[in-house]
């Protein structure tokens, strides 16, 4: 009986601890979102979306940064996502057990969690240094490189979920292999693949480190891909570390905007994949 009581006690202690750390974790996370809303909403007004980033002490908004982020993120995804889908298709449909496929899978998993600042330096070396100037184009390439591994992974996973009999049935009808993949397998895996692209957008829309040495920053409006371009994360980085209250306020507002974007994208992705599994 003595032994049983001590076992019960140690179990109660450990389970209490795990409940405790969960509460602790949730409190911290609520704290982060709370401060973000509190400080971010204080500066949220129309000017944020209609005016350029101000000089220190001046009035202004985040228009050029928002536009820059939108432009570079969408271009990066347009370049990176199709490449990722093709590579994922190779892994799931053509290579599957080949040497090349297992090597690519291994490397892709490493790129998936490789430090993004290193990717920024890589793009600096291959684009910024030879051209002699920072450019939005380099930012786009850096983001595209970050998009690829995410999309490769989800595309492969989703194609592997498509039942083999579906492919066999299509092949038995005489469809060539590319049609089996594009018209049958892709269609069956569509929601999952879109989910992967959404997750990739969420991942790169907050990336700061790879943009610091590629697209740099720009205090003014720019639609020139061959020149430095402002982006929300880079502006947040610059403004938050500055001593000016106005700039810090804009940094909080920008942080709130990014977080809302990322959360919306992730919720959308979840909802998409949930609606797929319910069917």
């Amino acid at each position, binding site marked *: 009986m003595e032994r049983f009581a001590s076992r019960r006690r140690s179990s109660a202690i450990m389970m209490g601890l795990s409940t405790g750390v*969960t509460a602790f974790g949730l409190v911290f*996370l609520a704290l*982060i979102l709370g401060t973000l809303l509190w400080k971010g909403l204080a500066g949220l007004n129309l000017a944020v979306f209609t005016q350029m980033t101000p000089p220190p002490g001046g009035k202004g908004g985040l228009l050029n940064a928002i536009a820059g982020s939108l432009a570079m993120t969408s271009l990066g995804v347009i370049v990176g996502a199709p490449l990722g889908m093709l*590579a994922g298709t190779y892994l799931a449909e053509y290579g599957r057990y080949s040497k090349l496929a297992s090597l690519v899978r291994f490397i892709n998993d490493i790129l998936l969690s490789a430090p993004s600042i*290193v990717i920024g*330096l890589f793009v600096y070396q291959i684009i910024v240094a030879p051209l002699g100037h920072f450019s939005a184009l380099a930012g786009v390439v850096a983001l595209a490189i970050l998009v690829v591994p995410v999309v490769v992974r989800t595309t492969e996973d989703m194609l592997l979920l498509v039942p083999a009999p579906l492919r066999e049935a299509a092949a038995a009808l005489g469809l060539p292999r590319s049609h089996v993949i594009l018209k049958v397998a892709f269609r069956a895996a569509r929601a999952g693949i879109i989910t992967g692209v959404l997750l990739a957008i969420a991942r790169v829309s907050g990336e700061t480190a790879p943009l610091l*040495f590629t697209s740099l920053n720009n205090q003014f409006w720019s639609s020139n891909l061959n020149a430095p371009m402002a982006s929300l994360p880079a502006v947040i980085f610059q403004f*938050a570390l500055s001593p000016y209250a106005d700039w810090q306020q804009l940094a909080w507002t920008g942080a709130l905007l990014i977080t809302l974007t*990322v959360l919306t994208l992730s919720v959308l992705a979840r909802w998409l994949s949930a609606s797929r599994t319910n069917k």
Partner: protein
Amino acid sequence: MADVAMGAAALVEERSPGRSKALASLKFGDLVFGRLTQAAAALVLLILSGVILSLLLGAIPAIRAFGLGFLVSEQWNPVTEKFGALAPIIGTVTTSIIAMAIAAPVGVGIAVFLTELCPQALRRPIGIAIELLAGIPSIIYGIWGLFVLAPFVQAYVEPAIIAVFGPIPVLSSVFAGPPYGIGTLTAGFVLAIMVVPFIAAVSRDVFDTVPPVLKESAYGIGCTSWEVVRRVVIPYTRVGLIGGMMLGLGRALGETMAVTFVIGNAHKITSSLLAPGTTISATIANEFTEADGQLYTSSLIALALILFVITFLVLAAARLMLARLERQKGR
């Protein structure tokens, strides 16, 4: 299948030349599409080798100037152009160790709570909240760490630590100096907060793979909840757990923005965790655009190379370990 199609093509050719042309174009399209996907897969390899190659090329001036001494020198002086990587390397390792020491038990604890204790109704909302938070960009954690956590640590946590550990001989040097708020310890905290949801989400997923029958039979012979977790769930999911932690570690090692805000960027090695320090990624983020002179830039690229090699080794080791444990389990 291809043989049959070809045979059929030969057969129809006699009857209708148009049809064989269509079949040939389909075959051609097949070939193009297959090669295209293969090329895209090869691109992934190309990116990796490109990253390594370009960093190596960029680091050559620094390697030539400092040799292996780069790895063990503490000096970082842009004026005299003397550079050494020891301080950032130590900073990266220390902050990651602090982060993992906090995040690993907390993350697994959350996963245990979610799979064993949590009421069914709360399970999904808490799980979703954690997954969403794992996706929040690191710059958000950085700005929060700078404006909220650092002042709090300076005002409450560090004075308390100094008061408690100050009189103890060895620990007093680990927690020496005035409470700045900004420094290695705070950076470790922010990293931990960032990595917790990540580890919790992965651990929860692996715990969910335990067959209910195993747990039920353990409960059936009278095990307590803790014994079920300790003797059944954790041994069964060891593989995935280690993988999840290694991924978390890889993330902590390479994390830039969350650390750059709160570490203080000081190139010196002190025994104190309270003093400002630096990490590899923070050094690069802070100094790269302002670096003038080939040697300065090259030294920063050499730092990036070191970081990439470290994270590559951690992530590759995780994969290989997983593969070995997987084989053991199969036996």
